[in-house]
Structures are given as C-alpha cells and as structure tokens.
C-alpha cells in the first residue's frame, strides 16, 4: 500500500489531466476529440476520488467512481449518438459548422 505519499503529487497529476481535458474541450474542433477530452476530465476526477478514498480509508469514493464510470459510459453513448446525427445533418463533425443559433 502507498505510504503517506506527499499529498499534492496526485493532485498535480489530476489537475494536469483535468487541465488538458478542459483545454482540448475548448480548443479542438472535432466533435469526437471533444468528447474524448471530456472523458479525460472525468477520469481526472476519478483519479482524485480514488486516491482520496484510499487515503482516508473510506470505500465511498470507490463507489462514486463506479457510478461515475457507468454514467460516463451512458454520456458517451448519447454524445456519439448526437454526433452521428450531426454528421448526418451536415456531412461534417466540425463544431464550427453548427452555427445556426448564431446571435
């Protein structure tokens, strides 16, 4: 088992993961990549959850992670469904193409 690993190490990792995910989420134009970055963010959260739950000995964190994973799976399914439809609509998955709600 991990001894009292300096606490901020995992946090750094998780934050970096989350930051990268968020960055990708904001920057990338391709819908699929955006969804992947979303997954990345979720996993960063999972990492923190697992690390803290193990560190404090409470199993609830792990349970949370289980739920997060199932919901993430659901989310991806719906996301991809939508992307599929978008693709059918406009032949492309570029997010910029979908500007119909422009102000």
């Amino acid at each position, binding site marked *: *088992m*991990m001894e*009292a*690993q300096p606490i*901020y*190490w*995992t*946090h*750094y*990792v998780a*934050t*970096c*993961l*989350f*930051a*990268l*995910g*968020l*960055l990708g989420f*904001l*920057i*990338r*134009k391709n819908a*699929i*990549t955006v*969804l*992947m*970055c979303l*997954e*990345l963010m979720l*996993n960063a959260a*999972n*990492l*923190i959850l*697992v*690390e803290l*739950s*193990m*560190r*404090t*000995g409470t*199993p*609830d964190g*792990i349970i949370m*992670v*289980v739920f997060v*994973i*199932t*919901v993430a*799976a659901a989310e*991806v399914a719906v996301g*991809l*469904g939508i992307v*599929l*439809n978008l*693709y*059918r*609509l*406009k*032949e492309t998955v570029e997010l910029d193409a979908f500007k119909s709600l422009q102000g």
Partner: protein
Amino acid sequence: MKELFFIFFSLYTIAAALGVVLAKNPVYSAFSLILSFFGLSALYVMWGATFIGMIQILVYTGAIVVLFVFVVMLLDLGSVVTDHSHSWLTVMVSAIAVWFFSLLMLRTFNHTPLVAPATPLAESNTRLISQLLFTEYLWPFEILSIFLLALIIAIYALTRPDAADKRKVHP
C-alpha cells in the same frame, strides 16, 4: 521503489493525455486515450484499488473507447487530417484561463484539510465494495440500472436508421 513507479506512471498518463489533445487525427487521439487509461488504471492499482483499476480497463478501455473508434471509423473521419482549433487568440485565452483554473483548483485541493488518514483499506476492496454497493448504496444502484435502460431506448431512438432518411442530409 514505489515512488519511482508512481512518478513514471503519472508522467506516462499525462503524456498520453497530451497526446489525446494534440493528436492531429481522431484515431491517434483515441489510441493515446487508451494508453492514458492504462496509466490511470496502473495508478489505481498502485493506490490499492485493484477492483477499480480492472473496471477502468474493462469498461472504459474495453467498451467506451471502442465506441469512439467505431464511430471514427464508420464516419471515416480519420482522413480529415488536421482541424486543430480556432484562431490563435482563442487558443491563447483558453490556455491562460485553463492554467488559472488549475491553479485555483490546486489551491483548493492543497488547502482542504483531510479527514484523519485512517488505516488504508485492508482486505480486498472488491468484497467491501460489493457489500456496500448492495447495502448502503442500493438505491443509487437500482436507479442507475433504470437509467441505463432508459439510455438504451434513447440511443436507439436517437440513431434510428429509418428516421435518418427523413432527415435528409442537406449541405
């Protein structure tokens, strides 16, 4: 020895995540996503949560990323080479914003007082988790199952083949 592994896997995961973001081709980003998930599950296992590590690979890598790859391949998006991102300005601004955001997050993480670090989970957590899952967290579990059922129906409705014809593809 353990710290070494820990550091290695962390760096490995971050590198993979970077790959996801920067990859030109969605397939490559999917591939690096898989690698990052491996790194993550390694971290989980090193933290002792073996069950979650395995679930991570089984569910995430085994199923979700497959979905991604399926869609990418079916829609033949791979060929679209680069689509990088918006104008330089937006990239810069978002980078700064994300950087600032992570700083704040770190700030809060490091300053949240930890509950007394009780003894780490002794016996294999799979047993413990399953017990908890069916005693204390029964309700969420059941609701989740119904949720997944609804999901399946929704997905089918969303991507019905015949409905597609009605929504003719118009440029």
